[in-house]
């Protein structure tokens, strides 16, 4: 029974690890995109000046 539970916990661990990774990635990208919009004027001025 203990050996069977190791397989069960491994499957659950992988499932929620994968869901948390893809979820966090989405949230990070969302925060980054929002931040870029908020800082658009400053950032774009810097990029244009560099060019």
């Amino acid at each position, binding site marked *: 029974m203990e050996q069977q539970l190791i397989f*069960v916990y491994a*499957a659950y661990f*992988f499932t929620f690890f994968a*869901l948390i990774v893809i979820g966090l990635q989405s949230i990070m990208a*969302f925060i980054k*995109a929002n931040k870029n919009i908020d800082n*658009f004027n400053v950032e774009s001025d810097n990029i*244009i000046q560099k060019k």
Partner: protein
Amino acid sequence: MSNIFNFLANPSRFKIFAEKVNPFLLIIMFVFIAVGLWFGLFNSPPDYQQGETVRIMYVHVPAAWMALMVYLSMTIMSIFSLVWRHPLADILSKSSAPIGATFTLIALVTGSIWGKPTWGTWWVWDARLTSVFILFLIYMGHIAVVRAFEDEYKGARAAAILTLFGAFNLPIIKFSVDWWNTLHQPASVIKLDGPSIHIDMMTPLIIMAVGFLFFYLSFLLINVQTELNQRKLKKLFIKKLNLN
């Protein structure tokens, strides 16, 4: 349907809609997954043949259902994209692909973990496993193709065509266990003569499936908002460059 699409295609309207709806979707997701976990791990009986390993079913089967459902929704969006050339359909399809790929990977890995104690092997190239693996490759192909073109419109069209070709794999996955002699068991929930699974096992399965569905919906909305913001940023930058 077209009216809803047109209403939500406006980025600012979509943002307001997503901001209002998403907290509810996230709460429903957390509740269903938490209850599903409790049922799946602690409040469901072991199988008379498989013992405790049957609990893997409560994450494996909903993940496999979601892998197919997300791909089906991408196929519908691809038709919208190719026929009506609606940009929101492209964005929805692009935003769905990473989530669908994750569910497919979960189905493959948890299936493999379940296979070892049940079949005595981690993997066999039988029709069901192979067709799901092909689905995973198609998802990865979609993610790559949509980002491979500098012109996002061309990338979206190429990805939509790939999605439509890949849709032929969906009935193969579903009926592979009936058409071929596979190590994977035949369907026991979604079949014509009704489910052949006991209610005590059906309950956690359905609860977890609903939780996974709401995971998809909530993170789809987040991904779509991100994509809309990135496109808006690109347009603003081009506008500013032209003004300078």
